[in-house]
């Protein structure tokens, strides 16, 4: 697996772990950040694949 994607997934997990301890008012912040990191991980995997194909 692409190393950058793995790091982003770790960040996503960290954000997800913060959700239960965050005040209701701000709970959406770690949720949105976690989802963003999952999307960045996905984009990173696709980027690595396209680089491998072109090289």
């Amino acid at each position, binding site marked *: 697996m692409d*190393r*950058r994607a793995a*790091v982003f997934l770790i*960040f996503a997990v*960290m*954000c997800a772990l*913060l959700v239960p*301890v*965050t*005040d209701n008012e*701000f709970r959406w*912040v*770690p949720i949105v*950040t976690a989802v*963003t*990191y999952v999307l*960045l991980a996905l*984009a990173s995997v696709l980027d690595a694949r396209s680089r491998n194909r072109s090289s």
Partner: protein
Amino acid sequence: MSLALIAVIGVALAFDFVNGFHDAANSIATVVSTRVLSPRMAVAWAAFFNFVAFLVFGTTVATTIAKGIVIPDSISLGVVFAGLLGAIGWSLITFYLGLPTSSSHALVGGMAGAAVAKAGWHVLESDGLRKIGVFIILSPLIGLALGMIFTVLIMWLFHRVRNVERLNRGFRTGQLVSAAAFSLGHGANDAQKTMGVILAVLIAEHEVPKTSGVPLWVVLSAHAAIGLGTLTGGWRIVKTMGTKITKLQPAGGVAAESAAAVTLFFTSAQGIPVSTTHTITGAIVGVGASRRLSAVRWGVAGRVVWAWVLTIPGAFVIAAATYGVVAVFN
């Protein structure tokens, strides 16, 4: 107003000044490293926007600091004095070592340490500390994600442009705006922390009622102190932030500062005290990681993380020990 109160307010403003030359260096690190402005001009630019931040943002962060770390009834002149000395002591140690730690979290650790030394662990405001703790972790992660997204957006928008020299000139101009925005966010979030400390001690000394907002003279003096601190500069840290974490081009500088500015605008508006250092470091790492992970010097980033982890306990211990000495003379 007693002489002791004036002295403690003086120490609070000195902390703000130290914060200025310690943390505010982050505002200009990318501008200096991409050679958009000379160090002298960059410092003046950042100092100006640090100062005018009070015209844009409210004082909700100050309220969180004044009432959200420890129970207001536990705050006294001695607690604030010891808390500030703990924060200043820790900031100076990390400044000497050239580490971009957080003066803000040093302040939180210092206030908590002094109050606990005075009255025990029950004085800690768990809700406020939890909010601060969550955003200690979230703010660099948000900065990193936004830094990467902004970099990718810039690359996507301008990848067809052939005249790279002209494009770089455009981004150099853009960096003036993004650095100004970041300095504005820094002034808003960090100067408010000192305002919060002064408000807390004014309430403790019954100079203002418990429900009072931040007096205008406090707002102006806090912004003046952080602006003057910025003018004095913190070059050791500029070097770490601007060149050692990853090498930045003007477009990357715009992305990093914009990402950090957005994060600071949001947190300042919501009354959440965050570290500007954490935020801009995350954003710079995000810009580097958009190229490849190896573009980031993870060893330096790791040292920075260790400084973050140690900041609250370090300032806590120094402040608690200082309160022990203060209590002897009380």
